[in-house]
Every structure is written in structure tokens, then in C-alpha cells.
């Protein structure tokens, strides 16, 4: 049986044992950028850096102050996440397996389920919340459709761990190289079959269009072909009995040994094992390209600043990229802690983000998130299941037109359709724990305000929730329904 209850007890206990008798918003510290001070600043900061405001992170910001809290989040190894790690290790054994060990598993669908469930548990309960948001950004940037094949269902385990998570806050060139060597990526974009004589262009095009330069980044069809030739022979071990199965290897017998020219850079003829250098040269050319700096700066700003960052900010962040060798942490530090930080634009939560933020806000618990798979699929945002290589869209236009699955998250969760709060199984919200004795409509609305908005629930939401609570007998069903409505409100769709 899982160790989850003890994991969540640490969060839940501190929630339940909240010592403050009156509801008091927790504020950021006075040294924070102006936009991040006070209760509203703390709410903004936590929403921006996490998968949703929670009582735990509110206390952490209050204790540490804005700057130390962000610095801690940017250095996730300094944050104790051992309870979650223990739960993950006990519940999802594939996470720790070598690629070859994963490949020996009987059921690719089970492997995928473990990875997807781990993704959700981490998003909901990890204390390294900023790290998980950064992982989300790179998962989309280097998108791999997990259902592309049974093989990729299993290979994605290694990609998630050894490519995305291992490099999420590191240097972009290292992340790019790791992705180029990833079995899952090699299979997804067919570079595993890219060979001398009749190259396969799929990866070559997407590494420039989607991973580095951007579609307007200045490459031509000729560059696509040249890059494809450079990556001929980049593949992975396929021998099923080999302990190295699904690890990268350079196959010189498939490599195009003639010279190439990529974006105006001459790459000399290379034979034998030295042909591997061609791909490394391409990684370097692309990584150091100013259009890559701008493209990656734009991606970081889209994820953490807003939909339409000013050109000057893109330039500044691109210059940080170039001067630091693509240091992702340095870029994020600027976006999150520069004196201008907090001028971020509101963003519309994508469905998984919304569902996770509902759980975090309402103090939800989970022994397994398996029951969240269907609602996430119905909302079109199941982790790792975006088909094309560009990753789930991150625009309000993409997600704002289909509201029903979003309303259903709260409606179904509070109707105990994902789990039982009495039996404490699966995914559930214990309204009694959240209410802590609040018994009037007004007091219940205050509790929701504290949990979801650091005490700053919009007036319209509060009055209408009170109206709903008092429109009939205020029984358990009605109280729980009011929680569901609160998180279906437009106010809660933004971060």
C-alpha cells in the first residue's frame, strides 16, 4: 500500500492545524518588488510560480520572504520533497528503471499510466512547484506524443527523467543535446531511421522550427536537408536483450561523411566515429544563434510572463540567454525577481493546470490520481498526449471556448466522482477540513476566499457564493457544490 497518507499528512496537518484563529491573508515581504508585496502580491507570486495557490506555499512565502522563496524554488534540490519521492518510488516503479528495464515491461499502457499519474501527483503535491512548471514548459517545447507508439509509451519515461527533468533548470544547449540523443525523440521524429543517401528530414526541420530558431528564424529548405545529413546515424540501441537498449549511439555506418553547410557554417567531411561531431556542431550553431536566443526567451516569457511580452523584454532576456550560455535559471531569475517582476500578464489556466490548482486550492488529497485521466482527456489536456510536435497550445483562444469540461472538474470532484472523502480514497476534497467549523454562508465564503485567493476573493464571487449557499437548505451537498462553483468561476480560471 502506498505511503501517500503520510506524504500528504504534512501538508494536510499544517492546513488543519492552522494556528491563526482569524482569517488573515499572508503577505510577501517589504523588500519584494512592489507588485509582489502584501497579500495580493503573495497571491500573484504563488500563482505565477506554481500549479496554484495553496496554504502551504502562502506560509512559506510569509516565512521566507519573496526573494528567498523564489530562490529556493529556483534551486529545487534545497527543498525537501522526500515524502512525495517516497510515494512515487513505491507507486510508480518504472520511474527509476533504466530504459532497458522499462522496455522489458509487459504493458506499455501501464508504463504510460504510471508516468502520467506521476506527472499529476508531482504537479499537485511537489513542494518544488516552480520546477514542475518549468518541466511543463520544456515538456511542451520538446513535445513527444506518448501514444505515438507502444515503444514511445515506454521510452518517454527515460526522456522525462533524463532529458526534461534533468536539464529543466540547467543550460539550454545541454537540454537540446540531451533531447537530440533521446530515444523517444529519435523515434518520435524518425531520426532513428535517418541515414546516408536518403535522409529523413523530420527531426532536422523540427529542431530548427520548434526547438531553436523558430519558423521565422531564417533557415531554408536547403538547411533542413543539410541538418538532416549531419544527424544521419544518430540512433539508439535496439537489441532487446542489451542492457543498453534504448540508449543513444552513433552509427557511423549510416552517417553521411561528406561535408555540409548549415546556416552558412561549413562542416568538413568526417569519417568514422568523428562523424558524431557533425551533430554536435549543429547543436552548437543552433544554440548560439541569436534567433534561438530570442525564440527561447519568447518561450520562457510566454510560460512565465504573459501572452504578449514587450519587445524590449524579449531582447533583454535574449541577451541574458546569450551572455550566460543559455542559462535557464538566470532567465527565470530575471523574469521572477527583477525589480519589474510582478508586471506579468494574467494567463488563462490550461485544463490540467486548472484541475491541479483546484486540488491545491481546496486542499484536495489523493491516494491515486487515476480517476483524473478521463476528465483530463475530456478537456483535451492529458499529460504527454498532444499529437503534433509543437506541444499543447498556451493561448486563451485555444482553451477559452470549451468551458464545460472545466466546470465539470469542480462539479465532479465535489460530487465525489473522483474519489471518496469519507473513505479517503482516490482523489477527494474533505470540505470539513477546509471549513474548520465555518457554518454560516458568509464564513464558508471566507474560508474559500482564504484557500483560493489568499483572502482576496473577488466581491462578485463572494456574494454569489453566499447567494448559492443560502438559496436552499445549506446541507453537505449544497456546501460541497459551492466549492465546485467557486472553482468554475471565471475568476479562478486565471493565474
Amino acid at each position, binding site marked *: 500500500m502506498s505511503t501517500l497518507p503520510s506524504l500528504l499528512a504534512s501538508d494536510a496537518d499544517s492546513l488543519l492545524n492552522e494556528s491563526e484563529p482569524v482569517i488573515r491573508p499572508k503577505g510577501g515581504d517589504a523588500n519584494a518588488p512592489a507588485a509582489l508585496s502584501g497579500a495580493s502580491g503573495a497571491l500573484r507570486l504563488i500563482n505565477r510560480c506554481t500549479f496554484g495557490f495553496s496554504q502551504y506555499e502562502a506560509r512559506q512565502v510569509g516565512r521566507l520572504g519573496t526573494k528567498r522563496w523564489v530562490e529556493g524554488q529556483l534551486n529545487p534540490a534545497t527543498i525537501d520533497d522526500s515524502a512525495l519521492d517516497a510515494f512515487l518510488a513505491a507507486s510508480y516503479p518504472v520511474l527509476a528503471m533504466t530504459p532497458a528495464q522499462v522496455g522489458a515491461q509487459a504493458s506499455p499502457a501501464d508504463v504510460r499510466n504510471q508516468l502520467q499519474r506521476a506527472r499529476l501527483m508531482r504537479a499537485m503535491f511537489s513542494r518544488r512547484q516552480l520546477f514542475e512548471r518549468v518541466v511543463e514548459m520544456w515538456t511542451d517545447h520538446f513535445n513527444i506524443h506518448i501514444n505515438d507508439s507502444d515503444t514511445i509509451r515506454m521510452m518517454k519515461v527515460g526522456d522525462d527523467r533524463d532529458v526534461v527533468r534533468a536539464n529543466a533548470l540547467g543550460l539550454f544547449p545541454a537540454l537540446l543535446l540531451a533531447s537530440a540523443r533521446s530515444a523517444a525523440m529519435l523515434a518520435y*521524429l*524518425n531520426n532513428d*531511421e*535517418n*541515414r546516408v*543517401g*536518403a*535522409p*529523413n*528530414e*523530420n527531426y532536422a*526541420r523540427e529542431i530548427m*522550427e520548434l526547438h531553436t530558431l523558430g*519558423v521565422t528564424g531564417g533557415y531554408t*529548405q536547403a538547411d*533542413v536537408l543539410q541538418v538532416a545529413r549531419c544527424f544521419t546515424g544518430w540512433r539508439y540501441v535496439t537489441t532487446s536483450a542489451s542492457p543498453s537498449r534504448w540508449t543513444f549511439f552513433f552509427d557511423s555506418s549510416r552517417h553521411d561523411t561528406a561535408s555540409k553547410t548549415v546556416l552558412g557554417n561549413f562542416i568538413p567531411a568526417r569519417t568514422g566515429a568523428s562523424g558524431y561531431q557533425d551533430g554536435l556542431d549543429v547543436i552548437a550553431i543552433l544554440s548560439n544563434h541569436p534567433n534561438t536566443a530570442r525564440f527561447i526567451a519568447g518561450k520562457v516569457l510566454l510560460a512565465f510572463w504573459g501572452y504578449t511580452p514587450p519587445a524590449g523584454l524579449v531582447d533583454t532576456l535574449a541577451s541574458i540567454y546569450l551572455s550566460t550560455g543559455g542559462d535557464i535559471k538566470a532567465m527565470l531569475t530575471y523574469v521572477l525577481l527583477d525589480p519589474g517582476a510582478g508586471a506579468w500578464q494574467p494567463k488563462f489556466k490550461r485544463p490540467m493546470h486548472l484541475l491541479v490548482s483546484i486540488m491545491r486550492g481546496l486542499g484536495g488529497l489523493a491516494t491515486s490520481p487515476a480517476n483524473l485521466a478521463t476528465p483530463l482527456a*475530456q*478537456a*483535451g*489536456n492529458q499529460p504527454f498526449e498532444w*499529437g*503534433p510536435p*509543437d506541444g499543447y*497550445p498556451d493561448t*486563451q*483562444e*485555444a*482553451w*477559452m*471556448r*470549451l*468551458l*464545460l*469540461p472545466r*466546470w*465539470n472538474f469542480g*462539479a*465532479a470532484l*465535489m*460530487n465525489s*466522482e473522483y474519489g471518496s472523502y469519507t473513505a479517503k480514497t482516490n482523489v477527494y476534497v474533505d470540505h470539513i477540513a477546509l471549513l474548520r467549523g465555518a457554518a454560516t454562508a458568509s464564513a464558508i465564503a471566507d474560508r474559500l476566499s482564504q484557500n483560493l485567493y489568499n483572502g482576496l476573493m473577488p466581491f*462578485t*464571487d463572494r456574494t*454569489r457564493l453566499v447567494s*448559492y449557499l443560502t*438559496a436552499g437548505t445549506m446541507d453537505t*451537498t*449544497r456546501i460541497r*457544490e459551492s466549492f*465546485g*462553483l467557486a472553482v*468554475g*468561476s*471565471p475568476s479562478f480560471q486565471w493565474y
Partner: protein
Amino acid sequence: MTTDPNACQEYNQLTRRRFMAVSTAVAAAAATPAWLPRVAFAQGGFSRDVIVCIYLRGGADGLSLCVPYGDPGYYANRPVTRVDPPGASGGMGAVDLDGFFGFAPSMQPLMGVYQAGHLLVVHATGSVDPTRSHFDAQKFMELGKPADSTLFTGWLGRHIAGVSPRDSSAPFRAVGIGYQLQLALSGAPGAVPVPDLANFNIRGSTATRAARLAWLKDIHQYQNEMFRTAASNTQTTIDALAAINAGSYLPPTGNWAYPATNLGSGRGAFSKAMQQTAALIRAEIGVEAVAIDLDGWDLHSALGPLTGSMANQMAAVANTLRAFYEDVLMSANKNVTVVVMSEFGRRVAENGSAGVDHGHGNVFFAMGRQIIGGRVLRNWPGLGAGQLYQNLDLQVTIDHRDLLAEIVSRRLGNPSLGQVFPGYTPTFRNIAVAG
């Protein structure tokens, strides 16, 4: 509305009058956005077709969908991924269309539609934009204008915004099957994305369902137009789809069967979407356009036009379209035009993994009883040396906007083509009967 003796009881119970009774408040409230010029459109007794716009996402290989077996360049470039000429041994040759082109064998189900003159194939067509990016190519095609990143409404959306509703009491005017509204429909008033027409209701206690929905709709009233409209449309759509009960709809017995809904790679979902769309159109609640996607075409490796991935994809398209044709166009005699397109064709020469990389020119299909079909319309540029686009790909010799514009004009009754396809003067190719 005529009722199908074979359709199941729940679906049968729906009549137009009954639908109106259950949804008196469903008139599409969404006004045409102020930024769009209005077109005063006089219907004059013209019954506009419903358009079903199918997009094959990922770049479908047009040289497999409609094989130019009469062009030796095809065989020179496709030694492994070829479809042999008609009459090839083993029955795996192309199905002849006109002595030069043929369907791949798995497209056989469409031969009946083609021979009835209701299916038009257009070859060497597509967007003239040179991009080989999936995302830019789809974007420019759906916007209806190449290389314009300032446009943000789709061709179909502008069409719908420019004409009066086909039915003023319609709960919605357009449906995009999916989680995001297709870009082609962007800008359409009363356009809703619905992932599954048979599963669209709010969870929780039925006793409080109406009150909760009213609460949610109400609290969106101060939001921006897109958000507010989405909330309002949600309620309307729930009511309309509950009344239709598309999940229980079955086509008449004896008709061509829709493929199984559990096929992989989105093929089963496509079949289900088309069957549900049949129910939606048969219900006559005023829908004017439905956009449906089928992905799985980006076959850089192991194309398989005879027995592999491409063959499976083509079989799903052919069987689904045939079923829809018999169901909606023939049995129910509905005025529907179906168009099928993809962002670009594939590279003429196969690559080293028996797949094909991104190319340029492609095929386009139009299906309808007023479509002048039974032929492969083309200005064939050839596949030989010196005949290829950038020495790599099939040329585009017919701009796809010529085809769409003619359908918009002659089948959708909208003469304002300058609004639907800004900056372009289309050439009609006589693919559809007017009126």
C-alpha cells in the same frame, strides 16, 4: 423531418418542433463582432448547403490518395512506397479513375460515390504558400490567405459571419469537433467546439444542475466577449445536444457502415464524429458548418500505401465518407457539401525510411449531390525532372481557394468572396452547380 424506421427510439423522438419546445431560449445570441463588415444577404429561396470541412492534419500524401499511375515520374521516385497501375497482380493495383489517375486500393469504397458523379478529386492543388511547416501551412490555409500573420479569422468563420443564419432559431451555427475551435471557423458567430456530441453535460446532482448552470452562466456576464459567449454557448449547446441525443443515432440498416469507433490513431474518433454529425444535420437545428479533423498523416517513416499506416488512414476516410454519403446525402437527402483537405502533400521522392518528408502540392476532395464530380480535375504539372516545385515536390497549379470560393458562392450562397478570401480573385473551375 422524415423519421428513419430503423433509427432507435430515443433518436426518433426528436422532431424539429419538439426540439424548439425544449430550447426556447437557444436562439444564437452571439452577434457578429463589430470589426467584421456586415453583408446584407438575401436568401431568395436558396437553400444553402451545410458544409462539412474535413482537415487531414499532418500532411496527407496526395500521391497515395490519388495515384498518378500514368506518370512515370511517380514510379521513378517511389520505388518502395508505390501503388502499381490498375490490373497489377494480387489485386493491389490502383483503382482506375480516368486512365491516368487511380485510387489506392483502400480508397475503393469511394468509387461508388465517384461513379455517381458526386465525388470530385482535384490534384496538384493546395496553398501557394511555400512553407513546409505543418503549423504555418495549416494556419495560412485555414485563414484563407497565405503568409498573412495579421489575419486572425478563418475563411469559414468569415463566411458565416457574413451571411444571415440559415435558421434564426439555431442553438449554434457551427461546430468544431474537438477541444479547440478550428482556425478555419475562427470569427464565426455561434461557433462552438465540442469534443463529443454525445457527451456534453454538467456533472453532479441532477436536482441542482439547472441552478448550477445558471450560476456559472451568470457569473461570466462581466467577462470579455469570447469568455462570456463561451459560457452562454455552453448552456445552449448542452440543451441542444441533449435534445438530439446523437449517441443513440444509427444510420438506416443496409447502408454502408461507419467504421468501428475503437480504431487507433484517431480513425475511430473520426468515424464517430462523422456519424454524430450525421445525426446533427438530420436533426435540422440549423447548423451551417461542421469542422472535423483527422490526424495521423505525418508519415516520415513506413508510409505503407497498400497495407500500412497510409492504407489504414485512407480506408478510414473512404469508409467513413461512403457511410456519411449514403446516410446523409442519399437516405436523408440533405443538402450537404463535404470538403477534404490537408496542409501540404509529401515529397515526391521517398526517403530512406520508406516514408515521405514534407512537400507542397496535394489533392482535395469535394463531395455532394450538386458537386460536379466523377473526374479528377487538374492542370497536371508532371513528376519528371524539371517539373517539380523547387526540384522536390508536386507543384500547386490550382489554388485551393478557387475551389473553396466556388463552393462558398454556389453552395453556401455567399457572393462576398472578397470578404471570405481577402486579396484574392478566385477562378471558378465549375466544380459545383449554383443554387
